[in-house]
C-alpha cells in the first residue's frame, strides 16, 4: 500500500469516526437545538427539537426561523443581535409549535465562523419556560392578592386611626369644657 493511499484510508477512518460522533452527539443533546444559516433558514435540528416543535426534520429544515415564533419581528431583532455578538443568552420569545400552540421559551444562540472568520450561521437552543412562567404568574397573582389584603388592612387601620383621633380630640375638647366649667 502506497503512503498516499494509507493516508487516504486514515483520513477516511477519521472522518467516519467524526460522522459517528456528530450523529451520536446530536442524538444525545437533551435540549431542542437547531442550526440556522445567515439568511435565517433552518439547516439542521436535533431529535428533541423535532419532538418539541412537532415537526419532522424534512418538514422544517429549509424553512425560515421566523415561522416558529409568534412575533417574527422579534426574531429579526434577535438575528441582528447575534450578528453583532458571538453569543446571545436567555432572550424570551413565544414559540409556535406545529399545532400553533404558543409556548414561552428562553432562547440562546452562538455564532459560527469559517476559517476566515466570516459569519456562517449560528446554533440556536430553546428552553421551555412555560412552568416557570406559570409559577411567575401564580406568584404575581398571590402578591397582588396579598397587596390587596394589606391595602384593606391599612385602610381599616386608617379608619380606626381616624376614629381614635376623633375620639381623642373629642376627649380633649370635653376636658377643656370641664376645665372651663370648673373655673
Amino acid at each position, binding site marked *: 500500500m502506497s503512503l498516499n493511499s494509507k493516508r487516504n484510508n486514515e483520513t*477516511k477512518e477519521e*472522518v*467516519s469516526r467524526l*460522522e459517528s460522533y*456528530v*450523529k451520536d452527539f446530536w442524538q444525545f443533546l437533551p435540549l431542542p437545538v437547531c*442550526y440556522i*444559516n*445567515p*439568511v*435565517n*433558514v433552518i*439547516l*439542521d435540528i436535533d431529535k428533541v427539537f423535532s419532538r418539541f416543535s412537532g415537526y*419532522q*426534520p*424534512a418538514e422544517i*429544515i*429549509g424553512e*425560515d426561523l421566523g415561522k416558529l415564533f409568534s412575533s417574527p419581528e422579534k426574531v429579526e431583532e434577535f438575528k441582528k443581535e447575534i450578528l453583532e455578538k458571538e453569543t446571545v443568552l436567555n432572550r424570551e420569545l413565544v414559540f409556535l409549535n406545529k399545532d400553533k400552540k404558543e409556548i414561552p421559551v428562553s432562547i440562546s444562540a452562538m455564532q*459560527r465562523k*469559517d476559517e476566515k472568520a*466570516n*459569519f*456562517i*450561521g449560528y446554533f440556536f437552543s430553546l428552553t421551555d419556560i412555560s412552568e416557570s412562567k406559570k409559577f411567575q404568574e401564580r406568584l404575581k397573582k398571590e402578591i397582588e392578592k396579598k397587596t390587596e389584603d394589606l391595602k384593606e388592612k391599612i385602610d381599616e387601620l386608617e379608619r380606626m386611626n381616624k376614629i381614635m383621633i376623633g375620639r381623642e380630640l373629642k376627649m380633649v375638647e370635653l376636658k377643656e369644657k370641664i376645665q372651663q366649667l370648673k373655673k
Partner: protein
Amino acid sequence: MIDKGKLENLMKIKGEAKGVVFQTDGKYVLEKEGEEGFKKLEKRVKELGLPIDYRKGKALDLHPIGLRTISLLLIKDTFNWPDEEIRNMGYIAPTTSFIVKLLMKFFVSFMKFMTEVPRYWEKHYTIGELEVVKLDEKTKDAVLHLKGVKFHPLFCLYLEGYYERMYQFIVGKKGECRETKCMFKGDPYHEYVLKLKT
C-alpha cells in the same frame, strides 16, 4: 420488474458515488414505508447481491456510481412509487444529508453557494461536472449545467427535486427547479433552471 441486464449495464458505468446518497434514500424509505418497508427494500438488495447498506453505510465511503441509479430504480419498483415520489425523495434528501452538515459553510448566501456549486457536486460524485452558467443576484435566477452524466431519466428527476430544496436553503424562500434540457432528449448536457416561486 427490474431487468438484471439493465442493472449490469448500470454497474459498468465508470465513476463513484459517496455513501451519503444511500443514507438519504434509506431515511426517506424508512419515513414513508416504516421499518417493514425498509426491511423489504433491504431484502431485495440482498437478493440482487448489491453492495448497498442503507442502515450502516458510511456517508463518505465510495461506491460504484451505477448503484446511485439502481437504488432509485429499486426503491421505485419495490414500492410501486410514481416518478413524482422519486422527485420528492430528492427534495427531502438535503434535509437529512450528512454532507449538507459538513458543508454548512456553503449555505450562507445565494452568491456564495453558487460559486461553490462545482465543488458541491464533487463532494458526492467522482464523475460529471456541475457548473453555473447564469446567475442573477437581484432576481435570484440561476441556471445550472450538468455535463458528463447520463445515468437514467429518474436520476434527472431526483436531481430536480434536490436542487429545488438546496435553492430554498440559500434564498430563504420558496423556489422551483425545472430540468429544461436533458441528455436523454438529445441535448449535450442537463440544464436546470432555478427561480423564486411567484
